[in-house]
């Protein structure tokens, strides 16, 4: 499985901490209390559990270590080689092997001691065996502690390796030290590689990403390679060689034609020829850097010849890819990273060639056939010879032209700056575009405090307008106040009208006062409805008085009011009354009379089953039944001394007589 991200490996603890962790975990997670008097099997089980638990923990932790560290044979050969170069494959494998052995040893120890514990016949003996078992396991780990420390260091370093995907589009940059590789990568990507004047600034691989034709490319910057025999190369150079060997990438070989890196073109050419075997099947581009110091045309004869030789070699790769022998566009390029002249062209050329190569390979592979017969680019068949170019409206064209012209015409601040001496020398005048009444005031310094006031409190561009608005508001308010004071003088009214007005006002004020009193008492006392009116204020006599005071005849109104308040003749059983009249003795007529007279003097209530139209009963029988049901339901509640339906209070939750006491026979499981 290809794994190029080593950041997920768990931390490897060092020997002592490892032992502490496991032992303290055993102490916390297993039962701790045991006594001499327990059954022997229980004692044995107690100690066996501890031994097994410790072994399991060691096993788990060591297994995670072994599994998470990558096996050098299972990962991509680029990473395998890179890790070999950095950490030495043998040491790495040895360390992991030791961890594996330790794991097996611990398992064996645990097994042996668990077997011995079965013969333990006393607490002391079992305890000694457990102590011996744990001690031996920890000794195994102590012996393996240096490997753990080594693996931890490797893990830390691996986690910081740049994440290079070996299978995606890659551009590799190589060449002598100090030729400008890192500056190039800084220019085209966002990788911030250190650029320094001394050689071997870059000591490891750096990755940056750049885009070309909507695809993402990895750009890998390698440390400089010196021309040495293979065996003499140090680790840093070996990193670059590894990258060159294993990654299928476009290679940019950088050449410093000015010689300011400290190496002549001859030396660089020699290096090229010594590693050209690594450029097999890779689109190679020779890039001549630092043309600002020495243009390509100004080179001497021998140097030019060397460069051409290199170009010829590079052409071979083009041919190998299936390109034309005469197509030498992307093979030899010049640029200068300082003036940024030609940088983008180099990048585009490299990316283009890489893309072509990858597309070619994909086309030739078998997998493409699955996709290819699913594609179909449909082009409409031309039905006549008429040309139909894309249609751009005239207005858009004009706008575009105008914009282009504007862009050229307008002078930007940056241009001004460059003209007047550059970034450190010229400082732009920010007040240039101020809009002021008098242009001479532009460069004036604004005071902060004037006459003891903050100037900024008084500055406002709209201040005059605001002042006007304020004054308007003031004027309006004053006018309103004048209006409010206006009252009815009462001079235009006739004396009768005036009198009537006075009376109305008096009455009104009286009512208001009464209402106020009523209101204040209503807050503190409940309002008694009219029918329980104790003061008997609202009598018909009062009404009569008030009406006659007004000059109206009250008698009819009184009659009407009275007729409503009088009760009707009460008939308990209307049928019987007629029937019994014949059989009654002398008293009955009086009774009837009494009934009748009583019906007038007393206030009459309705008989209990009498139908009232608004209540919703079909007939009085139904009403009686409803009343009976209501009484029945409340009977039970009343017996339980409940105040109503919702009363669910339990005065004692656990009455003692229900929850205590022995039984004469039987169990007390349930109460």
């Amino acid at each position, binding site marked *: 499985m290809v794994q190029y991200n080593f950041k997920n490996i768990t931390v490897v603890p060092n020997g002592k901490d490892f032992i*502490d962790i496991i032992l303290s975990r055993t*102490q916390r997670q297993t039962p701790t209390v045991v006594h001499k008097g327990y059954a022997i099997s229980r004692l044995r089980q107690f100690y066996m559990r501890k031994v097994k638990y410790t072994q399991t923990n060691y096993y788990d932790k060591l297994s995670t270590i072994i599994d998470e560290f990558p096996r050098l044979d299972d990962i991509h050969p680029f990473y395998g080689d890179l890790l070999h170069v950095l950490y030495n494959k043998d040491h790495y494998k040895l360390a992991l092997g030791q961890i594996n052995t330790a794991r097996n040893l611990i398992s064996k120890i645990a097994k*042996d*001691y668990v077997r*011995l514990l079965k*013969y333990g016949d006393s607490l002391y003996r079992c305890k*000694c065996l457990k102590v*011996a078992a744990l001690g031996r396991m920890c000794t195994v780990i102590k012996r393996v502690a240096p490997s753990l420390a080594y693996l931890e260091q490797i893990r830390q370093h691996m986690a910081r390796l*740049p994440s290079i995907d070996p299978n995606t589009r890659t551009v590799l940059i190589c060449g002598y030290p100090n030729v400008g590789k890192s500056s190039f990568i800084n220019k085209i990507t966002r990788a911030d590689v250190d650029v320094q004047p001394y050689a071997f600034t870059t000591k490891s691989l*750096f990755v940056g990403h750049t885009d070309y034709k909507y695809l993402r490319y990895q750009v890998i910057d390698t440390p400089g390679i010196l021309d040495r025999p293979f065996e003499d190369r140090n680790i840093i150079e070996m990193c670059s060689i590894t990258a060159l060997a294993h990654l299928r990438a476009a290679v940019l070989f950088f050449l410093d034609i000015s010689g300011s890196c400290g190496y002549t073109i001859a030396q660089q050419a020699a290096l090229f020829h010594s590693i050209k075997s690594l450029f097999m099947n890779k689109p190679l581009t020779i890039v001549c850097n630092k043309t600002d110091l020495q243009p390509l045309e100004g080179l001497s004869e021998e140097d030019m010849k060397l460069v051409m030789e290199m170009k010829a070699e590079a052409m071979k790769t083009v041919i190998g890819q299936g390109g034309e022998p005469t197509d030498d566009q992307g093979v030899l390029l010049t640029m200068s990273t300082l003036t940024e002249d030609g940088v983008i062209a180099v990048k585009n050329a490299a990316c283009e060639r890489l893309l072509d190569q990858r597309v070619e390979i994909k086309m030739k592979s078998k997998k493409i056939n699955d996709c290819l017969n699913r594609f179909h680019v449909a082009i409409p068949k031309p039905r006549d010879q008429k040309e139909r170019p894309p249609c751009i409206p005239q207005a858009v064209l004009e706008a575009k032209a105008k914009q282009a012209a504007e862009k050229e015409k307008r002078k930007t601040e940056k241009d001004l700056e460059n003209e007047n001496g550059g970034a450190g020398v010229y400082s732009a005048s920010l007040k240039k575009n101020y809009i002021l009444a008098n242009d001479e005031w532009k460069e004036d310094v604004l005071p902060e405090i004037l006459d003891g006031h903050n100037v900024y409190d008084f500055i406002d561009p709209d201040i005059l307008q605001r002042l006007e608005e304020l004054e308007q508001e003031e004027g309006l308010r004053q006018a309103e106040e004048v209006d409010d004071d206006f009252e009815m003088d009462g001079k235009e009214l006739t004396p009768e009208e005036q009198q009537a007005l006075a009376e109305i006002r008096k009455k009104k004020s009286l009512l208001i006062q009464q209402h106020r009193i009523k209101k204040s008492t209503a807050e503190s006392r409940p309002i008694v409805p009219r029918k329980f009116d104790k003061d008997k204020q609202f009598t018909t006599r009062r009404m009569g008085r008030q009406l006659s005071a007004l000059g109206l005849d009250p008698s009819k109104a009184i009659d009407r009011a009275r007729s409503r308040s009088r009760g009707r003749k009460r008939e308990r059983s209307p049928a019987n009354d007629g029937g019994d009249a014949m059989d009654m003795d002398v008293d009955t007529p009086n009774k009837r009379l009494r009934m009748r007279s009583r019906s007038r003097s007393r206030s009459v209530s309705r008989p209990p089953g009498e139908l009232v139209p608004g209540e919703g009963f079909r007939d009085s029988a139904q009403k009686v039944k409803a009343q009976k049901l209501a009484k029945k339901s409340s009977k039970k509640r009343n017996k339980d001394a409940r105040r109503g339906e919702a009363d669910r209070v339990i005065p004692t939750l656990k009455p003692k007589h229900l929850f205590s006491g022995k039984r004469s026979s039987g169990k007390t499981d349930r109460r």
Partner: protein
Amino acid sequence: MPQGDYIDLHRKRYGYRLDHFERKRKKEAREVHKRSQIAQKALGIKGKMFAKKRYAEKAQMKKTLAMHEESSTRRKVDDDVSKGAVPAYLLDRENTTRAKVLSNTIKQKRKEKAGKWEVPLPKVRPVAEDEMFKVLRTGKRKTKQWKRMITKATFVGPAFTRKPPKYERFIRPSGLRFTKAHVTHPELKCTFNLDIIGVKKNPNGQMYTSLGVMTRGTIIEVNVSELGLVTPAGKVVWGKYAQVTNNPENDGCINAVLLV
């Protein structure tokens, strides 16, 4: 600097915080107080472990301090006295060493006759029979009690076959059989894992010797071909005696000291 070293890169470009060094200094100064607080407040097993660690640290510190002080003080230098040196007033005496040597050999011969050897553990706690054997009840009603199971470590030898189970009286469980011992050479002070050849003598009795029980103080014979010892005659020594120094049933292993 590698691309992944973000912290160092940031430090290189922007430097440290303005108060970084002061904070660091103060934090380190506070460590002392924190440590003393932990030492006083930690309870239970944590406290014990911390105390042990701290004690070791303190002892080490004291030693180094003493060593430093040593070099600054002056001391009287005593010349070493060589072994055979004799003060001036005794020079004329004759030495009587020869006789002593003679009597020593006589003493040794007498000891050998008596059967006493010089061993690292001359006296050993006696092991009672009920500690050594566990009674096994057998039979249909589990009433017979003549079988015994040995609860200590034993050695049986490679050619051992059990008696028929019906007749074997002493059961030596296979879990308690050991074939290897950790033998320490008393002079070289290093330990080897050597095979046991046999049990020579168990101080608790010859019944135990014949059963092959190994307890503390037992003399066993171990295979020392690994060590490459050679007799003055030129023959290779491959078996030597060793004495068991621990309780194998409690430790699960046999530790012995070679008898040179």
